[in-house]
């Protein structure tokens, strides 16, 4: 083997790595969200359930909360719904909804039909709060600690398993 072949070999290895990561790119996020460890962006948006009221992120400071981005147009959100209801039942955190690019009437009807897991639902029709949070689809959830810092981000559906194994320990570990 001649030493001049080493760059080619290194390059081949790199191509494999790129190939594999590209294949997985649509499934998940590669670099941890830049927001983790940062203060959750503030928002103040219309309330879905109470006409004329506003939902402010500042209201939830001092408690753990899970900001869940959802929409009635999102099929996976339906799959996630039961888990959210269970999380709300568990009482460890408040679940705050961010109704993303959605129709208000459809969203209210959805909550009547499937049950409401949310302490409050903010309406983000143009997706401006979602831009602050770097949301690129629904569902997406942000776990925020009492200091208002984002400690975890889930892209896609929260499963009972991922809730128990990753997020609950984060909450219990710190809130003791």
């Amino acid at each position, binding site marked *: 083997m001649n030493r*001049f072949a080493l*760059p080619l070999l290194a390059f081949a290895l790199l*191509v494999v790595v*790129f190939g594999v990561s590209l294949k997985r790119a649509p499934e998940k996020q590669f670099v941890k969200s830049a927001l983790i460890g940062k203060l959750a962006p503030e928002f103040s948006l219309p309330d879905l359930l109470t006409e004329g009221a506003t939902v402010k992120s500042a209201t939830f400071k001092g408690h753990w909360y899970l900001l869940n981005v959802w929409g009635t147009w999102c099929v996976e959100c339906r799959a996630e719904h039961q888990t959210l209801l269970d999380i709300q039942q568990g009482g460890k955190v408040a679940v705050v909804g961010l109704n993303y690019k959605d129709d208000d009437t459809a969203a209210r009807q959805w909550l009547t039909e499937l049950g409401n897991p949310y302490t409050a639902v903010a309406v983000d029709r143009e997706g*401006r709060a979602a831009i602050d949070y770097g949301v690129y689809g629904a569902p997406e959830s942000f776990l925020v600690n009492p200091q208002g810092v984002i400690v975890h981000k889930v892209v896609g559906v929260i499963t009972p398993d991922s809730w128990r194994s990753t997020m609950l320990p984060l909450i219990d570990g710190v809130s003791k």
Partner: protein
Amino acid sequence: MIPEIGQYAMILALLLAASQAFFGIAGPWKGQQRWMAAVYPAVAGQFVLLALAFGCLIWSFVHNDFSVRMVAGHSNSALPVYYRVAAAWGNHEGSLLFWVFVLSIWTLAVASFSNTLPKAFVARVLGVLGIISVGFLLFSLATSNPFERLQPGLPDGVDLNPVLQDFGLTIHPPMLYVGYVGFSVAFAFACAAMLEGKLDQVWARWTRPWTTVAWMFLTTGIALGSWWAYYELGWGGYWAWDPVENSILMPWLLGTALIHSLAVTDKRGLFKSWTLLLAIMAFSFCLLATFMVRSGVLVSVHSFAADPARGIFILAFLVLTIGGALTLYVWRAPMLRSSAGFDLVSRESFLLFNNILLVIATAVVFGGTMAPFFADVLGLGTMSVGAPYFNPTFMLPVLPLLALVSVGTFSRWKRGALGESRTRILGSLALAVVLGLALIVGIYGDRSLLGPIGVVLALWIVVTSLVDPLDRLRRGITIPASVLGMTLAHIGLGVVTLGITTMETRMIERDVALAPGQQIELGRYAFRFEGVEDVDGPNYAATRARVVVTHDGKPETVLFPERRNYLVQQQALAEASLGVGWKRDLLATLGEEVGKGAWSFRFQVRPLMRYVWFGAALMSLGGFLATLDRRYRRRKEAADERAAAISGESLQGGRA
């Protein structure tokens, strides 16, 4: 209609690029003079067509043609006209068209200025550039067509991302692209030499000015990008070790190594296979940078367009070009032998150390940038690598590198004659230490370790860089442009080092909430908040705070940090206010209203911040001066003679 003309022009350009690639490679191979001659009109035609296509794109933006998807997605009728022009390359599709357009300019320049070079060689260079152009045009047309129409068109556009609405950003990507694409010339020269199976010192002399010009643009581009991040992103950061920033830094480091290694190959005929490899690698990293920004494998502020399908195309293209070049390298590199030798303390070995350290620095950056990829591919979960890794690790190769710049300046080609320069080395070091101590003890009053080391190294570089030119002046010898350029670039490096070390070790930063009339002190500066007012911009509404800064009680400046709300995108953005000066930058950023008229602020005092950009400007200017050297414009025959004369004096036993 206009967008369609642009579209057709791109398709025709693709056809011309393909013929340029074919005739350029096949002509010399088959020994067909007429095929080789056919390359030139293809180059010229491609340039005209791509200029037309790019012109059509700008026309669509300027005339607010919102039936073009890209215009609708990235522009708005309320946007000032210069940002509409800049929006043409402030997005994925447009920037790709810009990439090939720049490539066609470089190609045209190579075709025009290479009439003293052998015909077959130039044909091969242009052929390789043609292959690159085909790849990018295909990519653009197949996956990212800038002229795609919307049916039906929109009444108005979505607007350009507010972060990108800025003068720095209108010129920073073009500079970078000109630099990136410029390295394709060095790459094409390397490939042509490998296809010919012949690489001599004359080859290095041909390649040097092109490489230096590309490097100069890249330096300017990086400096502008960092300057933009500094004042636009609003938190005073100028370098975040963001994957995209790293992807720009790597070709720069390799390009710097290439410039130095080319000098050795030019003057002494050594390091031939190494220089080839560096030329391939520098361009590979430029392509890699494009891949990383544009494929969506990296999520960062910069990648506003993410699409895996594009990633697969770019990957295939990388395999073809880089893989092809490296395969050629495996085959040809063993044939390149250097006959000359050199001593351990000769200039050759210092430049070898320079190269090794720069490559290590590249590897450090590369490792940190790629670690998340590897971790993910190996199933270790996602991770991010940031400043805590990069800052200390990057120092390891860079500190010795900075020290070697000074010592290396005194070394001579071929022989180890540091002895006669010893007094100068020690003298200049002593001077640098004295100056450094004066600065540190007298002005800074500092106790940290890294600060003094950085400051002394920086001053040492500046002092030693001046020795040779001053010596020549004293003896009445004219200073060649290349020496002047090198001196300037090295002084620039010293100035950047001085700026960064001072700023990093001496910066003061405070986050506070202030009510009108309250003030906070940062060192000898006091920032007093006087109140806010509402102001309207062309496409935003803003709250502007008035902050009066005093230095030792004397009025210094007034800062007006803003919080802007961009109307079309409903996006809020903090616009920092800078008090710029040679001694320090003062920076105020306005945060949220915290109640009762009080606002949260971030204040910073950043000493010598200007020196970072000033030093970078000196480096670019140095690169520019170096390319003006008469050696590069000498007639071919004379150059050949000289090269033969130099290789004739080579000593026994090659060590490179």
